[in-house]
């Protein structure tokens, strides 16, 4: 298989890439790691007329902490996230579960976020931790909260003329922990079910901030806001986590498919939520 014909623009700067996109209009697509886009082009599900390769742009490959945030540039590969010391909690937990080692050597975190595959891992993690997507357009840069960014399956609120240049993820200042529990049939498969958890504790040991999001059990990555609200202000306990897990199981709308029955997946959501929250609090207490 090979893609249909396209023009390739190898951009040397963000400005050049954004300009090329404006010139190309609807038929233009950005290419970073290409681990989703190239297979889609080979299967002729995607057929851009112009491909704008951003891989040669300098300065987009840093993953680092600055001003209380984890900043992830558009060319940071999943493998870089796995290897990074700057990550924390759910981000660090999820990275080794994205795709497979070879795909992680090419695919980028920002590309995965922008792709908005409803069964992708990163958007659940970012919904749990909170994050801003940094987008550059002809009129400058703006930041979009992740909850406003994810708009549907393969759909974001990114403007047609905008490029995702990075992510900004708040690093908790106090004690915190996170987890990403993913059930997959084999390495590289989509999640059958995955649960992202993020907890922050105050000085008394009570939960001061909570994030919980689900992968592959709804039409898009889903933040379980009522469970988050339930957790905040409470002392962690098995009973509390069981109650949050019920809310997560209720929020899940899984379907019967080759990966399992809806009822079973809902049960996995319940179990993984309990385990994930317990792991997150354990990490927070040890931090």
């Amino acid at each position, binding site marked *: *298989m*090979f*893609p*249909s*014909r*396209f*023009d*390739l623009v*190898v951009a040397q700067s963000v400005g050049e890439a954004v300009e090329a996109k404006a010139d190309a209009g609807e038929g233009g697509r950005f*290419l970073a790691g*290409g*681990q989703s886009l*190239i*297979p889609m*082009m*080979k*299967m002729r599900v995607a057929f851009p007329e112009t*491909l704008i*390769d951003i*891989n040669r742009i300098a300065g987009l490959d840093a993953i680092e902490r600055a001003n209380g945030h984890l900043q992830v540039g558009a060319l940071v590969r999943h*493998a870089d996230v796995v290897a990074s010391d700057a990550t924390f909690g759910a981000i660090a937990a999820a990275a080794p579960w994205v*795709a*497979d*080692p*070879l*795909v992680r*050597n*090419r695919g980028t975190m920002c590309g995965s976020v922008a792709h908005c595959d409803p069964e992708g891992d990163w958007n659940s993690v970012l919904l749990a931790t909170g994050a801003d997507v940094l987008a550059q357009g002809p009129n400058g840069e703006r930041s979009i909260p992740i909850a406003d960014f994810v708009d549907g399956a393969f759909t974001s609120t990114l403007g047609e003329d905008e490029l995702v240049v990075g992510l900004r993820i708040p690093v908790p200042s106090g004690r915190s922990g996170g987890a990403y529990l993913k059930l997959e049939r084999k*390495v*590289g498969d989509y999640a059958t079910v995955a649960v992202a958890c993020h907890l922050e504790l105050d000085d008394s040991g009570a939960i001061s901030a909570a994030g919980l999001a689900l992968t592959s059990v709804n039409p898009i990555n889903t933040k379980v806001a009522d469970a988050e609200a339930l957790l905040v202000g409470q002392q962690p306990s098995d009973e509390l986590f069981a109650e949050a897990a019920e809310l997560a199981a209720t929020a899940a709308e899984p379907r019967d498919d080759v990966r399992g029955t809806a009822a079973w997946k809902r049960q996995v959501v319940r179990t993984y939520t309990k385990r994930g929250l317990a792991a997150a609090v354990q990490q927070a207490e040890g931090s």
Partner: protein
Amino acid sequence: MEINITINGSDHASDVEPRTLLVDHIRRTVGLTGTHVGCDTTSCGACTVLMDGNPVKACTVLAAQADGTEVTTVEGLKTADGLHPIQSAFTDDHGLQCGFCTPGMMLVGASLIAENADPSDDEVRWAISGNLCRCTGYINIVKAIQTAAARVAESSNGS
């Protein structure tokens, strides 16, 4: 478009269509057919090559994206001294049955032992988890990669 890729140490300048995939470029233009096409959908790893030292799936990289990089294919493992340790270990430990996945397995193995002199079973299995062996001969593949690691460690200790 004009590209120049260093493949197994030799420069290969060519004029390619932007849509040319790296694996097709290697097999058809350069004529090195040790890199296989299996699933063609980024799942199986038969098309694995090292790009600047990192294993990637060459069915999911455009040849144009490899412009200016150093690519190693299975043909590049062999040195003037003979087979790469990973190749002799696959032979000795029967690390292959049909041989279709073998180029990818050996390149991933070579990349792993370059960074980890003594990989555990789990570490080897983790490293090859993006490569499928339809003969399911994983036990001997893992063993062969560990044998190669031990031999490399031994020869570097001895020298």
